[in-house]
């Protein structure tokens, strides 16, 4: 089971912090993004990495760049 879980990327992100700064619940953020609350929770906890279109929606919502919210260094990402 651990092997199956490890197949999925565990990318860190600042979504929870950004949401807390606005005093939004997960349901509030989910409504902004038109996804389920479970989706927001899964992204925040790193259990699900959003698609590129959803990542752009998140970035635009918080007036940030994608790389300012999502950090892929924990899965080996690096600047080229």
């Amino acid at each position, binding site marked *: 089971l651990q092997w199956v879980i490890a197949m999925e990327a565990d990318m860190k992100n600042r979504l929870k912090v950004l949401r807390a700064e606005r005093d939004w619940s997960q349901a509030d953020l989910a409504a902004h993004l038109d996804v389920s609350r479970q989706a927001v929770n899964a*992204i925040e906890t790193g259990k699900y990495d959003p698609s590129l279109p959803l990542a752009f929606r998140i970035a635009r919502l918080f007036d940030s760049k994608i790389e300012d919210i999502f950090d892929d260094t924990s899965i080996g990402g690096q600047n080229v």
Partner: protein
Amino acid sequence: MSDQKMPKRPMSPRQKRYWLTTGGLGLVGGIFGYVMPAGKSDPSYVLLSNMPLSASQAVLACLIWSIGVGAGCFFYHRSIDEQEENAYLWACTASWYFIVFTYPVCWILARGGIMPTLDFQFIFVASIIVNGVVWAWKKFF
């Protein structure tokens, strides 16, 4: 972008489609469960056994299942978000591999006289359970 806590909002069109589809699929299941055992003394036995049905009952049940579930799935996939779609894909992969490994193993073992011949209905129901468990795991945990 607002700094205020958002008030309770109405459901988005996607959420409305989602709950309508979920309710519709539940209704199809209810009608199917009603049509199949109609007129029989033990409904649960009729649903899960191989006992004969009348031709009209069989045709009606197949139409309800194929058209109702087919339409429901069409709208379901248009209304779920990408995280649930991901959960669904994991669930389908798991249930597919469950069938791919379980059915041939049971079939060969039955031919070898090691175990009794397995009713395919068992594999079908078990694969649905595997699908549901993996879907719930990926969506909620």
